[in-house]
């Protein structure tokens, strides 16, 4: 059906990053957006906003990524970010069990407060600090008992997190922002999991009832004729 010459439909997806401090939220985004990694990255102070396009066979998804780092202690930024979000990345550090507890809190909060139908991915980061990470990307040939191997800092087993993710119908990945392992896969999986209906006319519960028109036709582009004609008219 699809004409291969026709431009693919493009939709924006708002994605929020949640998780305890220092689990690597910003690093995951940096890897995804710039394919870069910074050792000893400074904590994010306020919040950051980045975009990245992801090309699927049938459409292009433009992720608008909200990184809510830093101020979770006031719990005041998050509602602003997950409002209208279609996807959330809840990150924990698989060398730190308390970060999974925090991740569970975020998942519960999202299920209670965010848009219904939000796609949530649970991501265990810092796989590079485990034997799985060193021994060829998680093929699991580590025989050592958890915690005993000095080279393995893993404290959260794959099984525990995975079964939790299955119970709550979350996407689940273990990643390393440092090596890049699985990072793009997370975003591609999210892109694929966003229901087509919520992309028809962009996002949220008020999806389009006018199926014949694509989302962008409704959107008014403020960078249209006006800016060219009257540049610098602001104040």
């Amino acid at each position: 059906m699809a004409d291969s010459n026709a431009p693919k439909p493009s939709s924006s997806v708002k994605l929020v990053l949640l998780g305890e401090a220092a689990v690597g939220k910003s690093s995951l985004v940096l890897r995804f957006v710039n394919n870069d990694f910074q050792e000893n990255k400074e904590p994010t102070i306020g919040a950051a906003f980045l975009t990245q396009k992801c090309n699927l066979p049938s459409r292009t998804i433009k992720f608008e990524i909200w990184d809510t780092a830093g101020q979770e202690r006031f719990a005041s930024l998050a509602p602003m970010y997950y409002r209208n979000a279609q996807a959330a990345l809840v990150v924990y550090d698989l060398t730190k069990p308390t970060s999974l507890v925090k991740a569970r809190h975020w998942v519960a909060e999202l299920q209670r407060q965010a848009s219904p139908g939000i796609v949530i991915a649970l991501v265990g980061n810092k796989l590079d600090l485990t034997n799985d990470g060193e021994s060829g990307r998680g093929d699991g040939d580590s025989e050592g008992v958890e915690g005993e191997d000095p080279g393995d800092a893993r404290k959260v087993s794959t099984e525990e997190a995975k079964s939790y993710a299955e119970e709550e119908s979350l996407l689940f990945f273990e990643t390393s922002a440092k090596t890049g392992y699985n990072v793009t896969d997370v975003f591609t999986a999210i892109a694929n999991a966003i229901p087509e209906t919520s992309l028809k006319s962009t996002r949220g519960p008020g999806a389009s009832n006018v199926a014949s028109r694509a989302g962008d036709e409704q959107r008014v582009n403020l960078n249209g004729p006006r800016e060219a004609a009257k540049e610098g008219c602001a104040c």
Partner: protein
Amino acid sequence: MESLSAETWDTAICGTGLSQSLLALALSRSKKRILHLDANDFYGEHEAALSLQEADAWAQAHAGGGATHHLDNQLAEGENADEDVTSDKDKLSVAPKLSGKKSTIFRNAHVWKHPNAEAQGLSFPRAYSLALAPQIIHTKSKLLSQLVSSKAYRQVEFLAVGSFFVYSSTDAVSGTRLARIPSSREDVFSAQSIPARSKRTLMKFLKFVIDYDSDEQKPIWQGSADKPLSEFLVDHFKLDDRLRDFIIALTLTLDGKVTVRHGLTTIHRHLTSIGLFGPGFCAVYPKWGGISEIAQVGCRAGAVGGSTYMLDTPASIDEAGNGGDISIKLSDEVSIRTTTLISSQQIRSTTSQSISRLVAVVNSPLQPLFGVLAEGAPLPAVTVVAFPPGSLLNNTQLGSNTPVYAFVHSSETGECPSGQSVVYLTMQTIPLSSASEVLDMALTTLLQAVPATGEILYKLYYEQATSSRQSLVTSQGDATVFEFPSPSLGLAFDDESLDAVKEAWKIVMKDEALDNSFMKFEDREGMDDDDDVYD
């Protein structure tokens, strides 16, 4: 929370209404140390967008005379609390945690829910986002150019405002009670509802308005500048009643007594806004709850710039302020110090007008109201219906001298689920009878006039007034307290409110306030449109 008190903040901003949030945006690259608070547990203050659950709680808090004032920054003795109908269990909403002054901007709020609402299609509460500020924004508005120059516009989805209709109870010409106001020359010529002779007079008037302020046209109207526009239209342009209703409707004025000067200014704005960002439409509306969305974008920009955000945090000025800064009490344990305090006025001025608003969720998309305006135009998400004075004939006692406006929002606004719509009706509060009844009647009349059936599922009624229209600036030692006026009552966004934002910005920035740098930013890294694509 200790770290909050450990330092002196450059600015504490109380409230996340549009003005404060635009200030947060304006300061987002300034490196100033900013603490931004809101007593509510939602963003937007007077301009919030509420889920049904939040709307229920909000209405409860604003029933009767008003809600508890969230920033007790007037050091004089507080008012009596006898009008205060909120109680501790209403903690959810407007945070009556510190008693004292009350916000009296909103009052007499109540909600109504269809007895079988769920069976009729009412979805879960968070599927709705009812805007307290459903203003349309003309494409010429300075607000839009500031959002563009600050790059914040990238985070807002703007939808087109479509047709303007005028209701008539006695229309025999077109067979429909809702007549669409032609918005362009082509429109006028093709309009079947207007007789040819009327078309010529209408064209003559439209041509005049386009350059009404020129030396050639000024003499025509200046002599009658303060007279009613409706008389001027008849005397000078021989417009018939119907065309006069069209023109008056375009002014979006609520008192039905618009002057020539004001009327010509607003119609000129309307006409010259058409086509700026695309064919056919004169105004836009931000998806997800109107002005509230812009307030949130301002706060996000503040957060990205490093400001600290705390919701659900009422604040009051500590009496024990001293020296170069002000002490603000956030709770029994925590006080913070700041050199400037920005907040908004919460007390209605004794001379304030009052408007009555009815927000209704309807279980029909009201499709016939959302036709495309012109070829290549975006599908409109907002439609305006004007009920001229006296057109609601069922009860001539009620509201016969004031118009009613209905802004109908399709589900494209994200304010309701697909297949439903939200109708925002506004009129002047009428002292001796019930504006709420008139608005109900207008709503029912509207639903009967649209060839589509719809049941009303949920209604929120409230009255809104304004504080004094001036910003209040006071000094406490070397510290400054700045209070924004409350939002204007206009149906279209009023650019004048932007002046106060700049004024506040200058107070915070002091010598660093360079006029031509206000709201002008480059995109932040990673935020341009030409980013790489992952395959």
